[in-house]
Structures are given as structure tokens and as C-alpha cells.
């Protein structure tokens, strides 16, 4: 599992998990979000386009990331989930908290 990060501006960053976001990679994602927020990028978009698969632990890491961002006064959004990710989001009702955006730009707006 790899994570690409891109800084959009002084307060916004995009994280792109590549591959399978499962229980073995969630610790890495959690600490990456924490680092990103600590560096001042409190608005984080997790771009899931290259994420092939996510399990509940992966979703759990997204929620802890959301908590980290919110506590720093920012927000965490998700964008471009594939069919599998979308299914899991709906299964757990988590789409009511993390509403997926169709594009990264869409996730940034609003």
C-alpha cells in the first residue's frame, strides 16, 4: 500500500491511497493524516480513485482522520470511490458521514 500526497495550498492537501486499504495499512494512513494536519493542512481530501479495496478497518481510519481534521478546525472529505468502496460505504451507512464527491475539486468546494 502506497500513499501519494499533494499539497494544494497552505491549508489543503490530497492523500491518494493506492491499492488495498485494509487492516494492515490503516495505521500508516492514520499517522499520515495526523502529520498532514500537524503541518497546517487541516483540510484533507482522500482521493480513492486508486484504492482498489477497502475494509471496515480502512473506513475506521478515515473516520479517525476526520476526527483529527475536525479537531484542528478543518475537515476530511473523500472523492472518487470505486464500486467496492461505494458498496462498503453504503453497507455501513458511513456515506451519511463521509459523502463521496465525484471529483477532487468537488470535494474541495462547499
Amino acid at each position: 500500500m502506497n500513499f501519494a500526497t499533494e499539497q494544494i495550498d497552505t491549508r489543503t492537501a490530497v492523500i491518494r491511497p493506492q491499492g488495498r486499504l485494509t487492516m494492515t495499512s490503516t495505521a500508516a494512513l492514520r499517522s499520515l493524516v495526523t502529520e498532514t494536519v500537524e503541518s497546517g493542512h487541516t483540510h484533507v481530501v482522500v482521493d480513492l480513485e486508486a484504492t482498489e479495496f477497502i475494509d471496515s478497518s480502512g473506513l475506521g481510519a478515515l473516520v479517525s482522520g476526520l476526527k483529527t481534521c475536525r479537531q484542528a478546525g478543518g475537515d476530511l472529505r473523500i472523492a472518487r470511490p470505486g464500486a467496492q468502496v461505494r458498496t462498503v460505504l453504503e453497507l455501513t451507512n458511513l456515506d451519511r458521514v463521509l459523502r463521496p464527491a465525484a471529483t477532487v475539486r468537488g470535494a474541495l468546494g462547499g
Partner: protein
Amino acid sequence: MNAARYPERHRHRRPKAANRAFVRVLVVLTLSLGVNYLVWRWLESVNWSVWWIALPLVIAETYSLVDAFLFGITMWRMKERGEPPSPSPDATVDVFITTYNEPIDMVMTTARAARGIRFPHRTWVLDDGARPEMRAAAEEAGIGYLTRDPSWENMPRHAKAGNLNNALMQTDGEFLMILDADQIPEPEILDRTLGWFRDPEVALVQTPQFFTNVTASDPLGSQAPLFYGPIQKGKDGWNAAFFCGSNAVLRREALMQLGLAEYVRQVERSLRQVLRTSASLLSTARREAAGQGPQVRVALDEVSEAVRQARRELGAPRSSFSEVTYRFRQRVDEASRGVVHADVAALARDLEELGELGPAGSSGGEPGGDGQIAPAVLDEEALARLSTREMSPLNALSSVRALVDAVDVSRADEAQPIMPMATLSVTEDMATAMRLHGMGWRSVYHHEILATGLAPEDLGTMLHQRLRWAQGTLQVMLKENPLVQRGLAWGQRLMYFATMWSYLSGFFAVVYLVAPVVFLCFDIRPVVSYGPDFLLRLIPYLVFNQLLFLVIGYGKRTWRGTQYSLALFPLWIRATWTAFANVCFGRPLGFVVTPKTKQARARPPWRLVWPQLTAMALLALSAVTGTLRYLLGVADFDLLSLVVNLFWVLFDLVILSVVISAATYTGPESEEQKVAETL
């Protein structure tokens, strides 16, 4: 290994279809006879002239019949699973040993045995006491050591459930096995249980709890051969095998899904609740703000509007909580920006009035041009920063701060947003399993002793433990009544309800104790007749009930369990009452962690069982009084009624007598010592 101590430690027998059919016939007969008796009781034999005892008695008998029904339904589908499938070789497993304050030696004995489990795994000691010497011992033995991470500071800790939830976030095995600090596992425990997870819908495999520090007569009733046997097998038949907190393997994915679903539910619930109560929060804020400038009032109006808007948005079907709360927060920031603007403008006016001021004073933001300090000194960014959550002047109003903190999706009041193990009850296991079942997961009861532990060795400790279990079960019943939980099949609802129902027995036990006493002493007969009408209906019912019990409990020591279900009536009443007061009025349970080590004491703790001793004295006294009154011819009853009630008293006394042997029991070592001394 002493074979006598491991009566059930043998390979599974083939399912016996004939046995099951026989049990079903007995169930049908018992329940038909029971209904026949109870119908007669309600319609023809309640002595309404003494309704204060007659009505409670017939209600108590109805309670018992419902109990028999639930037991019958449980036995109807008793499931003998046989040999387990072999485990998938690439399964990854974390073994968790939970501890709080148990002796290091005890924990390490368990931990070393856990390390020795054959199937590849990692072993962790979950030390909620964060003891340095525990860490040192674990690390020396090459065993993982986990304690709460810093996010738990000043947060609700949720006891064992919290300890496990913390560990779940720090580990990543596909499966987790939970062991209490005293539960020593056999090396083959994972080989024998993991195979059941080949069914992808299985979330839980529970094995029996068996105690090694218990004498054959088991005065404290620690072994539960009926529960870890026919009852669990029966529940398993309805896909409702219970999770009992230890000696169980769980699927991480199932727990995490549960945690996520629960998180969404909690977020929605607390959002709706805070928005509902926001009106009173805002009027408090207005009172707090009295005397502040008009801008603050304007800002508070804007916050009110933001609340209204959030409520409206939340009302929309499948609205996003994240967006609703984010927009709410932005609107509040805007409102506070208005206050900042006004403050800064006032500041600038004051400065202007003071006249010229040097440019050196400008702090942050772009330089102020020609040295004049104007509101423009504070650029957008600085303004924004001054009005954010931490800096906002509205924060001075504690009620606004409380409101804004609560309208969020990050569960700021908990250490972790995701809590896979249910935290709604003092016993996390039952609630967790019920929710797993509600989400469609399956559970397995694997009937083979694969871990052995230590039971309480004195009455006080045992009573605490029973009280905690009863309170936990009743809490779940009151907070999440299984009969109305969506997602559960009817069989599962009844299986959960059956266990909860059985804990309500305390009140009815009192009635069973009082009824013969008032009859023998005061001629008060709650039943119109104790004659043939009564006996011809009651005796067949009782006989078949006992026969059913005998067949199901064949070869097991079930008598202790029967005794305690009645004899602990003061405890069941206390559990019911405290759980009710806790759930309905938020009163504390007065609950203590179960000590795993023996409490030192000098004399038998009679005061712990004074209600039972009083009841026994009254029963004995009433037997003598009744007999004398009959012989002297001053009683208003015939010989048959006397005999029926004397039998009743005798039964009560035999049941209650267990508390005497329990109070004088001093643990297995001293029992063996006594035996040695007499030889």
C-alpha cells in the same frame, strides 16, 4: 490431567437424532401440562379475597411457565456441531489477554500458555493498569504489551470494552482471541476453533468456561454445565450462541463493521438531540451575553439561524451529517467574524482617537501601507483566524461553545470515534454479540474445553460477580430490548430474551417463599383448593418438567444452578432494581471489578446472606406452627393441604440451604486440607 475434573473433555459424539426427538416430546408434554395447569389457576383457583398474595402467586407461576417455554424453545434446536473444519493456514490472529489489576504471575502464566498456542499468532497483554512491572514481564517473555494510547486521557474508559477497543486500533490480525487474565489456553485452541470461520458469515466462536479451582461439590456454583452445554447448544441452533467475554475468537472485520454502524448511529442520535435542545442552550447564551454589545446579539441570532438551517438540512432524506455539521460550523464562524469585525473596528476607532501611532505596532498580516493603523491591517486571513473555533469571541459564552462542540461528527466526547466492542453495558459481551447478530453475522458454540480458569473462592467475590453479570444483562434488556431489535430473527430475539427473563426471578422467588408461610401460620390460602383438583393438574406438570430437566442435564451437575437461581433472590432483586435505576434515572450501578484473588477473612460472611437465613428461619418456624395448629385442631385446613405446604416449605429450605455451605466455604485448598486432616 485429572479426568474427573474434565467431565466434558472428550471428542464430540455424533448428533443423536433420537435423543433430540425425545427431548422435543418432553418439551411439548411439559408445556401442554403447564398451560393446562395455569389456565385452571387463572380461571378457577385464584382466591381473590386475599388478592394481595393470590395474584402475586399466580403471576409468579405464570413467570415460571414463560421461563419453561423459553427453555423449551432453546432445547428444541439443540445443535451438536461435531468436528470443526481445519483452519485456513494463512489466517492471522492476535491473542489478547485482558488485565487490570490481577497479579503479574497470574497474567504471565496465562500469557506464556497463550504464547505456546500452536497455530501461528501474536500474543498481547492488554494492561489497563499500565503497570511498569507488567510491561517488563511481558517484554522479557517476548510477549506484546499494550496500554491505552494518549487519546483516552480524560475520556470515558469503558472498562474491558474500552481496553479491547484500544487494542483493536493498535493491532491488525484478521481474527482476535480474547482471554481473561486467569484463562489458561490449551495449545490446540486455535486449531480447534478457527476452522469455523471458513464460513465467511461467522463472526464469533465461543468455547466453554471451565474452572480448575473448584471442588466436586462446587458450593459456589461456579461451573455452569447447563449453560456451557445444552443451553449454548440450543442457542446455537437458533444462530444465537452467546459471546461470554473470554475464551472466544472474533472476526475483526465483523467488529469493525459493527463499530462503524454504531458510530453513524451515535452521530445521528447526538446531532438530533443537541439540535433539539439548542433552543435552551441559546437562551442561556443570550442571558450570558446580556450587557454585551449589539453585535453579540446579532451573532447569536445568526447562530440560531444556523441551528434552524442545520435542523432543516438534517430533516432531508439521507442528508450528510458531515456536510450539515461542516456548514453549521462555517455559519457560526461567520457569525463570530461579525463580532470580530465590530471589535476590530472599535479598536481602530480608539486608536484613531489616540492620534498618531508608529508603524512598528503592526503585528501579522501585510504591512499597513503608509503607517496608518486601519481595520485593513487585519487582512482576511487574520480575521478568519480570529473567528475560528478556538479564537472566536463567541466562545466566551460557554453555552455556545457547548453547542458548537456538540454539532459534530467526530464524537469528541469519546477517545475513539469507532468503538467496535459495545460500551452500553457493564458486560460488553452480550450487547456486542446481539448487535453482530442484528447485522446478519453468525456465531458458533464450540463445545470443547480449550481454556481453564479460576472461579471466585469466597462468597463475597462470587456475589459481586453474579451481581455484575445480572446488572449487565438487565441493562442491555432495558436499553436494547431484543424483542424489538431490527435485524434479529425471532428465534434470536427469544434466545436473548430468555437469558434476560431468567434474571427477573428474584421478585417471584419471594412470593414462592411467602405463600406457604402465610398459609401455615394464618390460614391464608392464595389457591382456592390444595386438594385433588390442584394436585392432579400440578403434579404431572412438575413431574414432566423435572423429567425434561433430567434428560437434558443427564450426567451433569445441574442442581447447584437450580438452587442458585432461587437462592440468590436478594441479589437478583438488587440487580433488577439498580439496572432499572441506572438506565431510567442515570443512577450509578455501584459496580466493582471482579477480584480474581481470594479475599482474606476470618469468619463466615453471614451478613451477605441474611435475607436467605431469615427466610429459612421463617419457613422452619411456619412448618412447626402449621403442624401444631393442625394437631391442636385450631387450623382451618385439612391434612392434604398441610402436607402440600410442608413439602413446599421443605423444597424451599433445601434450595436455600446452599447459602450455608457457600458462606462456610473457604476455597479448594482448605477443603483438601480438611480432608487430609480427617484421614
